[in-house]
């Protein structure tokens, strides 16, 4: 097996493992009936020290009897999901390292490699949040879903690992592209939280209005409190925004060296500028009054839509200086 084949095998393994993790999380999400109750308990009062023990016989009691999977088994599935997420992320990392060894260069040379990097950054962010206890494990369902979609799409732009064209052969590729990838990966998780927040908010509104809750709002029943999700969304964006800013600055330093001009209004640059401005608008919206704050999650999602557009459509559709990066 050549290095490229090994990298590809690890890549396929990653997708399978993440898909299995997603399934495990789904089991926990659907059948661990303890979850919503516990989330509520955490918000209303801080005095439930005993609840953290895994035994919790009193809690098992209120599980509906018709559930095919017991809450304990569901939590087991969740633990398995987490282990699989770690494994999948390790396999993804190994796939990238194998590519590096095989090609002897930094691994962000084309659109496929870039997308894979975004997936890795996103999952690393996710695992960091889970290990710090900032997010409940079972929400891994949504993170693995997002990353599986990203990896699945990346297959469509797969490019044989090869050498770099001269303009990309610079240490600035490490600085600029790594920053852009890390920011995109973290923002992906931020976008997931913005969506979850909107789902939960919509769900809560319907419940308080005594209106029926239909799909997709119904999946929000077991999400954490809407405010908690909103704060998490904000924190992730606050972390990623300076990184995105730095990535754009590094890119323009590189553009100066490679193309003679630090800003060319090349389509890639135009859309990076748009994304940056939209995220700045998001940060403002949060502090510009109630109605603007209510719209802020939409702006965050718009921001990620622009990032995705820049990553996909701009490479494929618009001709520009960046297009030599190879699809």
């Amino acid at each position, binding site marked *: 097996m050549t290095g490229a084949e090994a990298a590809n095998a690890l890549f396929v393994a990653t997708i399978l493992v993440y898909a299995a993790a997603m399934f495990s999380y789904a089991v926990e999400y659907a059948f661990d009936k303890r979850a919503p109750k516990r989330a509520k308990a955490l918000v209303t009062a801080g005095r439930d020290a005993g609840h953290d023990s895994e035994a919790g016989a009193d809690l098992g009691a209120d599980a509906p009897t018709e559930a095919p999977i017991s809450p304990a088994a569901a939590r087991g599935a969740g633990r398995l999901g987490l282990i699989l997420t770690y494994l999948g992320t390790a396999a993804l990392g190994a796939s990238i390292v194998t590519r590096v060894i095989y090609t002897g260069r930094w691994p962000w040379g084309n659109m496929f490699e870039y997308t894979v990097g975004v997936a890795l950054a996103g999952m690393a962010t996710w695992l960091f949040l889970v290990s710090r206890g900032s997010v409940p494990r079972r929400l891994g369902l949504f993170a693995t879903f997002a990353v599986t979609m990203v990896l699945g799409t990346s297959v469509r732009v797969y490019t044989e690992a090869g050498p770099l064209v001269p303009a990309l052969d610079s240490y600035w590729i490490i600085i600029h592209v790594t920053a852009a990838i890390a920011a995109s990966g973290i923002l992906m998780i931020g976008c997931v939280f913005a969506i979850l927040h909107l789902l939960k908010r919509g769900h809560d509104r319907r419940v308080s209005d005594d209106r029926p809750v239909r799909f997709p709002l119904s999946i929000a029943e077991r999400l954490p409190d809407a405010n908690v999700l909103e704060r998490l969304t904000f924190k992730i964006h606050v972390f990623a*925004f300076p990184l995105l800013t730095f990535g754009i600055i590094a890119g323009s330093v590189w553009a100066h060296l490679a193309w003679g001009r*630090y800003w060319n209004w090349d389509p890639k640059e135009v859309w990076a500028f748009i994304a940056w401005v939209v995220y700045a608008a998001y940060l403002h919206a949060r502090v510009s009054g109630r109605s*603007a704050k209510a719209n802020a999650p939409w702006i965050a999602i718009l921001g990620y839509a622009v990032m995705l557009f820049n990553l996909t459509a701009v490479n494929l559709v618009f001709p520009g200086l960046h297009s030599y990066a190879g699809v």
Partner: protein
Amino acid sequence: MTATLTPRKPKAAKRLRAFWRRWWHQLTAMRTALILLLALALAAIPGSTFPQRSISTVDVAGYFDEHPDLAPWLDRLWAFDVYTSPWFSAIYLLLMVSLAGCIVPRLAVHWRALRAPVPDAPKRMSILPHHRVLDGGANQGRARAVLKQRRWRTAVREHEDGTVVIAAEKGYLRETGNLLFHTSVIFILVGVAVGSLMSWYGNRILSEGKSYCNNLQQYDEYGLGAWVDETALPRFCVDLHAFDAEFTDGGPTAYDADVTYEAEGETGEYDLQVNHPLNIDGTNVFLIGHGYTAVVTYTDRYGQTQTLHQEFLSMDAALNSEGAFKFPDANVDPATGTVDQDAEVGFDAILVPTFDDSTPMLLGTEPELNNPVLALTAYTGDLGLGDGKPESVYAVNEEQIASGALQQVNDEVEVIGVGDSMTLPDGTSLSFDGVEQYAVLQVRHDPGGPVVLAGAVLLLLGLLPGLAVRRRRYWIRWNPDGTVETAGLNRNDFDGLDEECDELTAAIAPDSPPPGTHTDKSGSDQ
């Protein structure tokens, strides 16, 4: 009449002032900034969907050819100059005014806050979100030492009734960073403006062994900012000794241009590469492209020869290139000086770096010079060079062909390799002597660049504390009745305030049992 007008005048002025104040207030509101930011994002989009003159005039001309009806209308809307258009400028100028109107008052407020003592605790501290009553006492000296050690800014107040309050505040750096960040946005824009007024650039195609000097006549293409004096460009000359392109698996992996330069009597050597510009006194020389130069020799009816080194323009990534050879002063009888009829000769040519004769395709798929050929079409007659009109050096004049002034000689293109020649019916011939390389150099001077970079660095330096630092207050009060109260107040979203205040209180009064006793009403059920 006048008597009735005078009392109304101040009213009108007042109304006008009120009107302006309201608008100014509107413009500098956060919500306006939000809307302007989103508008700016929207306005930037057309710049990526339509070709832009600032990037490629050729593409814009191509768009006009393809959409002859639509293009003039789009042009009237500045669709091909989006980033200098009045509507794009209007949005960002409004944003800058709004920004300045936002920064200046905040600067004043922040300046005062930095110098004013931390405000006293409210009378009823129990209304504050984080409130504790200590069970034991607390030492004032220790409290001050602890706060100082943790770099809180403190103010101590002793009231007449015996109450002592230590007020502490932390996180001023957030507003400092925030203001620095917003100010550097303006700074960057100033740099961009300086750049557009004072920068200049020129592009030059330079074959191996050739040299050129920095003046506008010697550039193939150039652009000058409004404030640039074209006679005052720095003097220097650049000489390209050799150009080397390295290929791996059919793709280019490195370009090296071996140059010497001379400026102000000093000479130097430089290995010019992509990503490694040559800096000559603040003017940068970049390697932005390369291509092939075909070397051919034409032998005319009198046996006279002329050798041409002609640069070719690449058409694709495999460097299949187009170009032309023109011999306007061929076929002159050396004995009499008379010019033959149909004397001028021209060739349209395609240079294929790696010709594959096992396929019927003319164009090659690899940029490396493995089997270069020229595909030639010859013309004789009047090349039309003397009419003073600018014309492409990469093609024989099409108008002359259309008007019949030039006659096409061969119906089918003739493909020749290096060392071969093409013989015309009149016995003259063109021989393909070899291929050289050329480099495309861009020379650019932009005094705004360093300003923009400095602004960007400041922006980042402001952004980090502006986002990460949290401003908060903490009070500890010794009441005349002997009780000690503490309270905290968040001035930004900060999750950890409770923990931080508890930890502070524990450090200040280590003898008190751990707090956790809320003295507000909700705690009474304990």
